[in-house]
């Protein structure tokens, strides 16, 4: 047995986009145990539901996270719509799906860039983010915002996308697909990248299941769990298969995310091809009364939304279970036995979003 040392990791660390603290118990260079501590950026957004009325809260719900902002807004709106028994127009469902899948592309490309940065491949990081910029431009053109869209509302969506713009999106994505193939080829086949990801941080299928891992973390370990298959929004009308890998290492998690980017491109194209004509929102009258649970598949995994309302315009309770929170136990499992130099990349492979987790 070697010397045992405790090394504090975070909350400020070059590799971390957001603050999380880990006490790493080391035996020489190997991590034996990791003890997490969160709570650096708690903002009390769930409590705010008592101060802002349920319509205004749509804008707050979007600001839970900067990357999956649209999906947070959508999850919240879907919950309220279920309580109030609102059936949103079909076109709105398709538009929501298009924006949700674009968000998935944007989130995964962001993560790929960050991970390239974490293993020291600066030019790959820059090129991945260059591609992501095109997705952000689509967002700005269709919604008016690059990160926070403010486009989802209770009863549908606030903005329509014209057929010409839909064609334009289709064209941009077709061009982008070629470039994506070129860039993602580096992630999947370059020897120096593989050296940092292949066989690092293996999470077995059983461990992933027991620890309740979600999203790409679970999919990379061979668990076929994707909430989009439940068919919320317009997913029921699109053809797709959840992507799974079986190795459970960092390489498998990268591969799942890369394949999901291409899947998102395919889903957007499918949605553009069959999007129906019609209205984009219905008028909402009255206040919600009741409670409901909604689950949404975010880029990082499944998120749960719980709303309790009692007939007034202020909600009683709002609760979000974000995917990063569910993935922290799985992260601690993968950290055991890894070397100190692999810790940054392993923390990144769960795609941590701490602002979401602490809300």
């Amino acid at each position, binding site marked *: 047995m070697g010397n045992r040392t405790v090394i504090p990791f975070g909350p400020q660390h070059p590799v971390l986009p957001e603050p999380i603290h880990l006490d790493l118990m080391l035996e020489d260079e190997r991590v034996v145990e990791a003890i997490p501590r969160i709570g650096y950026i708690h903002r009390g957004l769930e409590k705010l539901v008592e101060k802002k009325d349920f319509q*205004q*809260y749509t*804008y*707050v719900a979007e600001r839970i996270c900067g990357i999956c902002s649209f999906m947070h807004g959508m999850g919240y709106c879907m919950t309220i719509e279920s309580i109030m028994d609102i059936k949103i127009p079909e076109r709105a469902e398709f538009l929501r799906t298009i924006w949700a899948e674009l968000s998935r592309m944007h989130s995964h490309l962001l993560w790929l860039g960050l991970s390239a940065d974490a293993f020291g*491949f600066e*030019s790959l990081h820059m090129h991945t983010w260059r591609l992501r910029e095109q997705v952000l431009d689509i967002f700005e053109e269709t*919604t008016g915002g690059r990160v926070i869209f403010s486009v989802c509302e209770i009863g549908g969506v*606030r903005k329509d996308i014209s057929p010409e713009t839909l064609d334009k999106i289709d064209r941009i994505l077709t061009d982008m697909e070629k470039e994506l193939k070129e*860039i993602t080829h580096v992630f999947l086949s370059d020897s120096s990248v593989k050296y940092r990801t292949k066989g690092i941080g293996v999470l077995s299928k059983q461990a992933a299941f027991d620890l309740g891992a979600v999203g790409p973390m679970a999919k990379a370990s061979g668990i076929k769990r994707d909430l989009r298959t439940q068919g919320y929004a317009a997913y029921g009308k699109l053809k797709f298969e959840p992507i799974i890998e079986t190795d459970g290492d960092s390489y498998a998690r990268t591969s799942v995310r890369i394949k999901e980017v291409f899947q998102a491109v395919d889903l957007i194209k499918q949605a553009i091809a069959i999007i129906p004509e019609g209205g984009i929102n219905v008028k909402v009258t009255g206040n919600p009364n009741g409670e409901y649970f909604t689950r949404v598949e975010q880029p990082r995994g499944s998120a749960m939304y719980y709303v309790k309302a009692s007939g007034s315009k202020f909600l009683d309770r709002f609760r979000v279970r974000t995917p990063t929170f569910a993935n922290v136990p799985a992260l601690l499992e993968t950290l055991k036995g890894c070397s100190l130099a692999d810790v940054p990349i392993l923390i990144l492979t769960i795609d941590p979003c701490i602002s979401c987790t602490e809300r």
Partner: protein
Amino acid sequence: MAILSMSKTLFKSLVHGPYTVLYPVKKKETYERTRGRVEINISQCIYCGLCQRRCPTGAIQVNRGNTTWSIDRLKCIQCNYCNEVCPKKCLRMNNEYTSPSFGSVRDDYTNARVSGDKENN
């Protein structure tokens, strides 16, 4: 196992030139829907206060007595909600952003309406 798999992309970018916009010589084009800042056509405002009540961050202050409409630019989150609820459609979302500042930026608009003066109103 591929070696130098990035070289194709790198050679392409060598001849491509910068992918970024050369700010401040060239400015990035905004889109028609870009949410920059809220503007008001004060002469049409009826001071109903709907925008103030609906604003999620409380950035807008409307005073019916003094006929003033003011907005705290740094509190505004550009959600466009005020714009949608305005019954007179006198609010508008401009594509230009508010410029950065150290202190709070408050814009006050006062209408020069004279009560009882039908000609000027």
